Each structure stands twice: as structure tokens, then as C-alpha cells.
């Protein structure tokens, strides 16, 4: 029943793009995003973002088909971006605007493609360390993140259980009648999880 959720959008590999440290990848992405938004009329920055995205995808070891599929996946967004702008702007301006947004999306997708979820979460935990003084506990944040990841399959299981019970009663389980029991089961699961954590010495 449970469709396959939680398959990370990451593709394992050992390319130079994969091996680049996570903070460096974020820095490059942020710098480009900033440059793109500050110098909106500069076609060279847009070209640089696209070049980096395409070269990065090819260097990541992913097949060229995968890149083409990603581009094809952007078709609705391109349509959505293009149509309203063509009414007010010239063709060239519209093309530049669309290229800027899609280039940044491709580049962000490249970072996700080449970085494991654990590596990003590790980087987040390390980045949170300076916030200790403000009362943020990085270990608690990590604990909460891993609990969330583990709760998704559990809650999907609750959902399947509820639907099965409804079907057994011959009830047509619409989304509205499913959410109330799902909410209660989810909150009960939180209580059990908190008790189990306490039993393991988490205070």
C-alpha cells in the first residue's frame, strides 16, 4: 500500500561534484543565487549558472538522459513562467527571466543530486553549533530530524491501517474521515516515542 516515499533525490557516486565539501557547494549555490538576483539584467551570470549546471550534471556521472529528463520535468514551469511575461515584456527579456529561474533550479537540483541526505544534515548540525549560545541544541535538532525520518513510514502504515479498517466496514474512506483517526494515532505515537526516548535516558 505504502507507495515508496523517502527515496532520497540523491544519486550516490564518487565524482568530483560528489566529493566537493557540502559547505563549499552551498557557498557556490548561494553566491550564484545572490549574483543572479542582484544583477538581473546580466546575461553572462545566467549563462554561467547554466554552464555550471550542465557541466556539473555531466561531471556527476549521471547519464545524459537523466539531465534531459530533468529539463523535460521543467516544461510546465517554463510554460507557467513564459506565458504571463510575454504579455508585458519582450521576447528577449522573457527568455532571460525564464533562463535565470530554471538555471538556478537546475543548479539547486544538482546539489541535491550529488549530496547525500546525511551529509546535508551533518552540515546543518555543524552550522547550528554557533547558535548554542542562543539556546539551540544541535544534538536535539539532529534527534528531532532522525525521529521525523523514522516517523514517515510509521504514519504511512497508520494511514494504510485506517483505510483497511474502513474497507472492512464497507465504509468509503474519504480524506476527511481518514484524517481524524490519523491525527489521534500520530499523536499517540508521539507519546510512545517520548516514553521510549525517556527510557533510553534522553531527558
Amino acid at each position: 500500500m505504502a507507495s515508496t516515499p523517502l527515496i532520497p533525490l540523491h544519486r550516490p557516486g564518487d565524482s568530483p561534484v560528489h566529493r566537493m565539501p557540502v559547505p563549499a557547494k552551498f557557498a557556490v549555490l548561494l553566491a550564484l543565487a545572490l549574483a543572479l538576483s542582484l544583477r538581473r539584467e546580466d546575461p553572462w551570470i545566467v549563462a554561467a549558472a547554466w554552464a555550471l549546471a550542465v557541466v556539473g550534471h555531466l561531471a556527476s556521472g549521471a547519464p545524459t538522459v537523466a539531465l534531459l529528463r530533468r529539463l523535460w520535468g521543467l516544461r510546465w514551469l517554463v510554460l507557467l513562467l513564459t506565458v504571463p511575461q510575454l504579455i508585458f515584456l519582450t521576447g528577449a527579456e522573457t527568455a532571460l527571466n525564464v533562463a535565470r529561474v530554471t538555471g538556478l533550479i537546475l543548479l539547486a537540483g544538482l546539489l541535491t543530486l550529488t549530496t547525500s541526505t546525511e551529509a546535508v544534515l551533518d552540515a546543518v548540525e555543524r552550522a547550528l553549533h554557533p547558535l548554542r549560545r542562543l539556546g539551540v541544541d544541535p544534538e536535539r535538532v539532529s534527534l528531532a530530524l532522525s525521529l521525523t525520518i523514522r516517523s514517515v513510514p510509521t504514519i504511512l502504515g497508520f494511514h494504510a491501517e485506517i483505510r483497511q479498517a474502513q474497507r472492512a466496514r464497507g465504509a468509503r474512506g474519504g480524506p476527511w474521515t481518514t484524517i481524524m483517526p490519523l491525527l489521534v494515532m500520530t499523536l499517540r505515537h508521539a507519546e510512545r516515542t517520548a516514553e521510549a526516548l525517556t527510557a533510553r535516558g534522553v531527558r
Partner: protein
Amino acid sequence: MPSTAPQTPTTPAASGAPAPQALRPGTARDDGGVSRSVRGIARMAVFAALVAVLGQPFAVPVIAGVPITLQTLGVMLAGAVLGPWRGAGAMVLLHLLVAAGLPLLSQGSGGLAVYAGPTAGYALGWIPGALVVGAIVQAGWPLRLWRTAAGTVLGGVAVIHACGIPVMAWQLGLSLPQAAVSSAAFVPGDLAKAVAAVLLTHTLARAYPTPFEHARRRRG
């Protein structure tokens, strides 16, 4: 592995201390020796997961050919049930995992590309949205219907659209009024979700008031 979370129903019998019977909100420990902080973390984590589940394709009802995501209903419920801080905290957790590359947003989208797209403002608006919902809905105990309605509409609809419209305008090259008009198409659906959130919140508050700690601490 359908359920990896430990399911041990623990009682503090081993420590020799009798388990406190009465639930006393306002004390650092409610019952079973579970600290408020641990309970809060568990609730934020499961609620973040619940919002992720509400976005998965099978949980998305299709009305007149248009898929309606229930994720914003989850956002309203997070604020209304967990209160402002934990509700917003649950949304931060969800966003950290999405940014880390897990496909937890509607229809399995995720990764950093979400934040470069035109709907980034709506998604990020869930954080202040849940905060505002929680602050208004849980301003006092028992919950009041008018307050719950005002909170879910203000936080769950107005705040999220207010965050989403400028980003969409910027990304799509629209002016703010133009973006607001195209955003307005989603308002009827969002209001329907707000009605559902109000009914669910009040049913839950009567049947299972334990999670409404924030409100119950205000007026015992």
C-alpha cells in the same frame, strides 16, 4: 521496516518512584518522568512527518481533475494542536529535511530546487503560518470556536499567501497585484481546509486534549 521507532510502553516502575497519576500541565514533568522537552521533540517530529504524509499522492483527493494537496491542512493543524512554537518547529524540521533532499512536499517534490522555484514563498510561509495559527488558536483554554477560525484563516491562509505572493511575483515576472490575483484562485480551497482544520481541532481538543499544552498552560 514499517515501524522502526521503539514501541516499549515504559513505566518508571524501575526507578521506584510511583508514577504521578494526575496530569499537571505547567510542571516541567507531566507524567511518567517524560520531560516536556522530549515530549515536545517527539510531537514536532511526528507532526512534520504527518504533513509529509498528507502530501503523498495517495492522500491527495482529486476534485474536478485538480489535485488538492492536504499539506496546508497539516500546517494549520500543526499550529492549532501543538501551539505556536512547536507548530513552527515542526515546519522547520520538515523544511530542513526537504532541503536535505527528501521528497516530502506534495507529489514527492523536494530538494533544494523547491526553494529556487516560484512556490518557495508559500512553502516557507508554513513556518510563520503555523506560528500565527498556534498563537491565536491556543491563546486560551478551553479553545473558542471564533478564535480557532480566526487563527486558521489568518495564519493558515493569509500569512501563507502573504509569503507566497511576493516570491511568485518575482519569479514569474508579475506585479504584486497580478500575482495576488493568480494566488486568489487557491483561496476557496484553502478556506475549505481551514473549515476542516477548525472542526478537526475542536473534535480533537474534546476527545484528546493532552497535546494542547500551550493553551492549557495559559488557563488551567
